[in-house]
């Protein structure tokens, strides 16, 4: 893994807060030349440190609600490839939103999204469980998201400071 420069770390922090910030604004906030910021961003993109610029969506605000499940999967690792091959077979499905290799009681944590319960259940029974090296699955449906990636979804109390204070 690469040791990132101080500048790159600062750029990442600020873009992580708001990905729409322009290089000019970032340069002012950090106190460096705009060119340096552009260069840092280009390198970060090239190295796939910055993978993508996407909106964080609170889907529950929309009527057409989807369901998401976190599925605990126990697997037998493959000789020579460990978990990589099976993880790949799973994560290539578009309905799989994330896959993590875990320590503890199970091996992979798979986040699956579907239009309804049955769609997710079908995915588990027809795609996930039949994979040879999958020993067991345990499906947990998400009922409500309070916070995701450091962002709180609830409407929080806004700035309650006085307009003017000494």
């Amino acid at each position, binding site marked *: 893994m690469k040791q990132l420069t101080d500048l790159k770390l600062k750029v990442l922090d*600020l873009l992580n807060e*708001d990905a729409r*910030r322009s290089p000019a*604004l970032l340069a*002012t*906030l*950090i*106190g460096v030349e705009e060119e340096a910021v552009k260069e840092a961003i280009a390198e970060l993109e090239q190295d796939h440190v910055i993978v993508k610029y996407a909106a964080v969506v609170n889907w529950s605000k929309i009527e057409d609600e989807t369901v998401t499940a976190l599925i605990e999967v126990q697997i037998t690792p493959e000789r020579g490839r460990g978990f990589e091959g099976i993880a790949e077979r799973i994560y290539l499905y578009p309905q799989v939103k994330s896959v993590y290799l875990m320590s503890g009681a199970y091996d992979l944590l798979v986040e699956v999204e579907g239009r309804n319960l049955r769609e997710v259940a079908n995915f588990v029974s027809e795609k996930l469980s039949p994979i040879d090296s999958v020993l067991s699955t345990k499906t947990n449906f998400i009922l409500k998201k309070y916070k995701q990636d450091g962002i709180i979804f609830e409407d929080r109390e806004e*700035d309650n*400071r*006085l*307009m*003017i*204070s*000494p």
Partner: protein
Amino acid sequence: MIVNEETKKQQNSKSMQSYLAPLVRDIPPSGIRRFFDLAEGSKDIITLGVGEPDFTTPWHVREACVYSLERGRTAYTSNAGMIELREAIAQYLYDSFQVSYQPSNQILVTVGGSEAIDLALRALIVPGDEILIPEPCYVSYSPITSIGGGVPVGIETFAENDFKLTAEALEAKITPKSKVLILCYPSNPTGAIMTYEDWLPIAKVVEKHDLIVISDEIYAELTYTQKHVSFASIPGMMDRTVLVSGFSKAFAMTGWRMGYACAHPDLIAAMLKIHQYTVMCAPVMGQVAALEALTNGLEEKDRMIESYNQRRRLIVQGFVDIGLPCHEPQGAFYAFPSIAETGLSSDEFAQRLLMEAKVAAVPGTAFGQGGEGFLRCSYATSVAQLTEALERIGEFVHKLKTS
């Protein structure tokens, strides 16, 4: 015939005003208060007028307070404050600013830094004593001095010196009645700081004229170009200095009202007498929270400081782009641009900015001498709000210049 008894009573009695102590009655209302009333009534305002952090107190601090309440920690603490807290303050001050105080008899926990300043002045002032106050400065020093029976003597500081206090300016205001010098660096409202080299000549004058210094270092953590130098750390100044600080600015804890004073044991003992007869002790909930902030909050504090620094660069760049001269604020979270070249007074500018551009900021005149021609803009607000406010100010200034 119905006689209006109330009206009759009022006619017979003296007006309530006449009962008030002249000392208090004659204090002019705060320039900030008037502006506050104006701003409160308006809609869609972006405010750069707030003198406090835009962060909520970190959760671990709030949680520690809630937990202590759940356990029923609700009794008085020792008058000077919990000894654990005073020990933590001593350690923190030593680690951060290389000043060394005994927790047992040199540290007093107060209800905000404001109480500490009031206590120090009341413990020191003999009626008629002159209290030297570099201006523009925080709005309370002069009124507290007057209430305590002292005579406030302003020392004007100037943009061309980056609003630093100079030995010459100080010396020029000294009379046989001079007793106390109140310092506030990093400065609210100018953002000025004083370096070690800046302090040395001031210390000489203080020594020469046998002054006591009340050094309000509430913004000590918020310096961006170099570390804060406490006046108490200047050789020979320790015993002459009342170091006042608190948790409001560095730890985003304004509403908790947690401050402290550090000084010579005799002076602290005198201040403690007033403190114990007036407020007994600082609120226990606040003390528990303050202890948590010092124990586990230093990293979070540094993160907040970095964030202020980013926004400081943004606002300074903003005023450069707009074409308003602004000395580089090196501390606190205020920029203090000059609006003199627009031809408007500070009051007019601030009022019209509020009405026409929907941006609230405080006219420099609210902070005493030398404030005319300047505007205090707090950058403790989100990057998005700050960007929008700067755009509005830019348009407003452009309109003024071209009309």
